[in-house]
């Protein structure tokens, strides 16, 4: 997401490179969304945004962390939250799983839930 300087952001292709180096992905989508379609990477945890305030301390501070969601908006807010709580190792992945799928990166589940729309996260990201 453009026009912000608080949070460092990387694209899905860079994320893929980080994953290969052992970065942890933190998916902040809700459980039902993850059940439909998930990132298929070795190191990933799901902390839905609705539980984030209570569970963010599960995120390690000693390894590279990439925050992800459907379109990049919710994960941006979550990354900002982490930065405000002293995390220096967390970055946001722009454009979410929608762009991840477009790029042909590995997923598990039904990709049709993100194809066919630009899927800014504001639909479920808001509220």
């Amino acid at each position, binding site marked *: 997401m453009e026009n912000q300087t*608080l949070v460092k952001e990387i694209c899905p292709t860079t994320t893929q490179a980080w994953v290969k180096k052992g970065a942890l992905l933190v998916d902040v989508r809700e459980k039902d969304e993850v059940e439909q379609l998930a990132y298929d990477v070795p190191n990933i945890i799901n902390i839905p*945004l609705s539980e984030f305030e209570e569970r963010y301390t599960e995120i390690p501070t000693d390894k590279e962390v990439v925050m992800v969601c459907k379109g990049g*908006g919710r994960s941006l807010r979550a990354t900002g939250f982490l930065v*405000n709580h002293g995390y220096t190792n967390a970055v946001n992945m722009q454009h979410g799983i929608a762009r991840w799928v477009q790029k042909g990166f590995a997923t598990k589940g039904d990709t049709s839930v993100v194809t066919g729309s630009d899927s800014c996260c*504001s*639909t479920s990201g*808001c*509220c």
Partner: protein
Amino acid sequence: MKQIKILGPGCPKCKATYTNVLEALKKTNIEANVEKIEDIEEMMKYNVLTTPVLMIDNEIKVKGRIAQINEIIELLNK
């Protein structure tokens, strides 16, 4: 004068909250400075995760849902 802020990316729920705030103010005749904050960086400064957020005098009163008119009136009268 009360300071009211509505934080959110401009989604329908955020707009509904804003409309409800204006309606509540009309009903109570309370004077307030109402500000919509849609800028993501500005929102992150408030550590907001779920939107919309209703802030009154710099205190988060309602987050992650639409604040209802009666509820806002009650909060304004506190």
